[in-house]
């Protein structure tokens, strides 16, 4: 992608900017549709109607909210640490947005084909913790501080099971590149990693149960990493009002929301790349059968977005069904159950691969 625009413009900065616009657009669209979907789906679940006044079926509700957000006064409390306070939302957003640089939307739409994509994603998404801690500290609000502490503890803890499961995928595929991992699961859905990968043989069938366990663990821990119910403890509204962004308003608050939805899509994308074939179609390509080659990248983008949105829908569904865990229960779930299981999973997968 970058190379293409570089050849076209001959300018590094310009081509980088152009390439960066696609994921930014995606984050904005994800936030716009995500908030609308969250409202509509939660309304369906809760026997309500949801937004239905702004535009057809309330479709413009999020846009109206966005405009409202832009118009709001940037009110700040008196005793805040204004430097950190202003940096925090930007940092949080940067952390969740930078992840998109390495995510392959289709074979032709990748921000940057880094060989260590997975490593990059795990590393850069930790930037969010810093932003959250900053926001909590700088707000000079006890609720914010409690929320930030909870959030930091939670995100750091849950990175461990995520990393262990990612490691087991790396063992199978032998690469850290997200594009290559996607490409290994090409063609049909039985080549997906969750069904044991593309290589047909005894190993594939032995792997299936462990891959399913791995998927469940990584799904739970990514839920916790993006602070969604039942792990929305940092922003538990009934306890901590709004957690670390209690004191924020207007666009700064909107940036936290934006990064939350950006994160939701990012982790969904990672999970679908690791286990569900990434941008590859589960049922073959129309472009291949029709002989239209330029259709394939578009189909791939479609499948990628479809998989991502499926996981977002599951996240929304969980959020509006389950109560919230307590902070110590959350930690014990991570350290007593997820990490040991993930570790055993890793060892067993290693043994299977040696067979």
């Amino acid at each position, binding site marked *: 992608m970058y190379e293409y625009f570089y050849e076209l413009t001959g300018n590094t900065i310009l081509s980088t900017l152009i390439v960066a616009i696609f994921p930014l657009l995606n984050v904005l669209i994800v936030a716009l549709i995500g908030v609308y979907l969250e409202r509509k789906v939660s309304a369906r679940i*809760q026997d309500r109607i949801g937004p239905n006044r702004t535009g057809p079926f309330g479709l413009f509700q999020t846009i109206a909210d966005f405009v409202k957000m832009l118009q709001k006064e940037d009110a700040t409390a008196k005793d805040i640490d204004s430097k950190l306070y202003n940096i925090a939302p930007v940092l949080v957003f940067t952390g969740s947005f930078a992840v998109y640089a390495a995510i392959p939307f289709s074979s032709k739409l990748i921000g940057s084909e880094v060989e260590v994509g997975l490593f990059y994603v795990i590393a850069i998404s930790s930037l969010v913790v810093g932003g959250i801690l900053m926001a909590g500290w700088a707000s000079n609000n006890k*609720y914010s501080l*409690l929320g930030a502490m909870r959030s930091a503890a939670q995100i750091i803890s849950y990175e461990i099971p995520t990393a262990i499961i990612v490691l087991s995928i790396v063992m199978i595929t032998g690469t850290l590149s997200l594009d290559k991992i996607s490409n290994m699961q090409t063609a049909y859905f039985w080549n997906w990693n969750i069904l044991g990968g593309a290589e047909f043989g005894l190993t594939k069938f032995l792997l299936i149960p462990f891959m399913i366990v791995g998927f469940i663990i990584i799904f739970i821990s990514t839920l916790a990493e993006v602070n969604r*119910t039942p792990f929305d403890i940092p922003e*538990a509204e009934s306890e901590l009002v709004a957690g670390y962004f209690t004191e924020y308003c207007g666009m700064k608050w909107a940036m936290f929301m934006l990064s939350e939805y950006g994160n939701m899509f990012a982790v969904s994308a990672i999970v679908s790349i690791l286990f569900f074939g990434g941008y590859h179609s589960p049922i073959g390509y129309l472009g291949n059968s029709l002989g239209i080659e330029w259709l394939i990248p578009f189909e791939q983008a479609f499948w990628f977005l479809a998989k991502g949105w499926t996981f977002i829908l599951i996240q929304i569904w969980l959020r509006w069904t389950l*109560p*919230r*865990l*307590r*902070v110590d229960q959350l930690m014990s779930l991570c350290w007593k159950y997820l990490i040991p299981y993930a570790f055993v999973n890793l060892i067993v997968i290693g043994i299977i691969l040696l067979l």
Partner: protein
Amino acid sequence: MTIKTEQMVLNMGPQHPSTHGVLRLELEIEGELVKKVTPHLGYLHRCFEKHAEAMQYNQVVPYTDRLDYLAAIGNNFGYALAVEKLLGIEVPERVEYIRVIMAELQRIASHLVAIGSNGADIGALTPFLYLFRDREYILNIIEETCGARMLYNYIWIGGLSHDIHPDFIRKTKEFCNYFKPTIVELDNLLSYNKIFIERTANIGVLPVDTAINFGASGPTLRGSGIKFDLRKDDPYSIYDRFNFEIPTGKGLMGTIGDCWDRYYVRIREMEQSLKIIEQAIDNIPNGDVQSAIPKRIKPPKGTVYKRIENPRGELGYFIISDGTVNPFRVKVRAPSFVNLEVLGELCKGYLVADVIAILGSIDIVLGEVDR
């Protein structure tokens, strides 16, 4: 090296999503561990008791609505019974039956809010809305009869403000049939939810003797395993004619007297209320609901204390009459107020998140706490 540490004081409320109104809790916390809880009251004080002294007896009834605004019929009921006892009035059978049915419908509606908001505090927002949907059913039934949805002014001294609507009996029966499966749905969705049990079982355990010493009543007391219900133990109106049980906390998921027990007692109580309604609804005799309403209320000198079982516990009215048309003194023994005192004992040593769960399980209404 020693690091200086200090306890942090966290003000929860009066503006907070889950203090159920304008309660202010002063939490002394170490990290997330709660060391001390001090409730601060008075943000919703409206001088009900003083107001009542300036009113005539019948004019006080609408003010009683505003005490426990989630169970307004119960408040009317208690006040009417107290003044009737002072006056020595016998009310017609029809009135008694309608009062009991209304009070039980109101009890279900009130418990629905209690259970729903307890769940919502813990993060389960969906059951909350399901329960409000069911509550709407009850409010519609009552609205059809007396025109109001929340502050009814329905039970008057010696009678009722309106006779029941012609559709009342049919709709109440429909509601009973509709509501039984929803209790099962609620059990599946919330009561037996693993996360909900984790959050409420073994949390905020209220031992029997503490409950008695603090004078707790209602589901808060029964959750600790004591079978005390004024409908059975000091029967008023016609409750002695009905066959129902008093559910108590059994410690099914943890210890007797924990949050889950208090929560579960409310669910079982709703079933018993349905049972009472079903027994009463077919036996409403004919008659005039306003025949016994006195034209001028001027009770003789004396005092009276009448207590009823409101959804939140023992609601008592102590009235002193000096022989004039105005009460000399009206004192309300508000169950929410008394139950709230237990909070400080319950929250010690738990986490901030548990304070919310415990507060929800005690189920206070600030209108009644502050009066």
